[in-house]
């Protein structure tokens, strides 16, 4: 006979993996923020590849566990959806880092300090929200956290508009505009991915309320 303890410990495994995935996403953003703090130095791709590979490994473990285990508290498709969304964070960060290296000549003098703050706030909030899942938060609690994330995303939208205004002002060479627009849009996308993660957690909590 399957004991309740055993069933719940299997759910714990999923919570552990989802939290590990969110942590990897945060790690990749921390590595990103290190290169954004010193854009004149050529960064190494190692930390980004590692984070993405680690998150991919976790996502595969989740998918494997979904096939072989019986989940009691969360729906399979929700676990799958959350793990896919979380994996997209380090994946987009890695894409940014690759483009950053090839656009180094254009990006060396850019000021990314506002992006750093938003990226940090976004990933910290995602990690907190994923950690809340196993504690079965109320809808109000999770909605309030999700609203913080929406605010970060909205600030990122305002920031990119301000930056595009400068890029389109005829003060920059068109190739700089092309390269920097691409970089800034990828940073915005990282924050969008965090917002997507928050939306999935909210959807799960709403479903089980």
């Amino acid at each position, binding site marked *: 006979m399957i004991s309740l303890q055993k069933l719940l410990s299997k759910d714990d495994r999923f919570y552990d993996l989802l939290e590990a995935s969110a942590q990897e996403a945060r790690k990749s953003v921390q590595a990103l923020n290190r290169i954004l703090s010193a854009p004149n130095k050529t960064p190494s791709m190692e930390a980004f590849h590692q984070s993405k590979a680690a998150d991919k490994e976790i996502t595969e473990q989740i998918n494997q566990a979904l096939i072989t285990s019986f989940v009691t508290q969360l729906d399979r498709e929700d676990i799958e959806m959350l793990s896919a969304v979380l994996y997209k964070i380090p994946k987009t960060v890695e894409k940014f880092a690759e483009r950053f290296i090839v656009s180094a000549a254009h990006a060396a003098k850019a000021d990314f300090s506002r992006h750093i703050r938003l990226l940090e706030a976004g990933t910290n909030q995602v990690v907190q929200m994923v950690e809340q899942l196993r504690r079965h938060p109320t*809808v109000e609690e999770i909605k309030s956290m999700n609203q913080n994330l929406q605010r970060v995303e909205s600030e990122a939208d305002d920031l990119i*508009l301000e930056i*595009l*205004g400068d890029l*389109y002002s*005829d003060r920059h060479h*068109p190739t700089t*505009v*092309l390269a920097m*627009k691409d970089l800034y849009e990828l940073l915005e996308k990282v924050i969008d991915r965090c917002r997507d993660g928050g939306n999935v957690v909210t*959807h799960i909590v*709403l*479903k089980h*309320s």
Partner: protein
Amino acid sequence: MEALKSTLNNGAGRPSLESFREARRQNKAITENIAELQLRALVTSFEREDIEAVAEALYKIPKTVEKFAERYLLSYKHVRDFDFTRQLVLLEEATKSVLEMVQAFRALAGMAEIKRLDRRIQRLENEADDVVLHLVGQLIAPEFPTLRGIILKDLVELNEKVVDRCRDASGVIARVTMKIS
């Protein structure tokens, strides 16, 4: 869509973002109301996640239109004399079709009608792809000013995305209809 049409047809003065923001805010409020209602309502004809999926897909339409408008206004001096008419016609038809589809969905018009409307939106989306290809061809021509080309490419691609969002919403409604039929 009405706000977009009036902005793109307004040759006289610099248009404002407020009407787009208002449309998107209203749509967001509706999406949130739907989410709240799902919490309180015990019985509905649809599953929670299907209602959520339809609401989210619909919300993305004004959100993308607003994004276009923000960027259009930002680069007004570079883009005001560009002709967006072909895209505008498709956008109008696509959003009108989505509205008809939502009305048919509510009236439980049945799979055949939903499929007919979905096919219409798919056709519009194909046309939008052709139009964007033609426009991008103009924008990347060697004689076209580079910065203007970069800005306009972004804008015509955003307009294409609005039609894509209409197609996505239509796809979600068709899937939900098929599920309950």
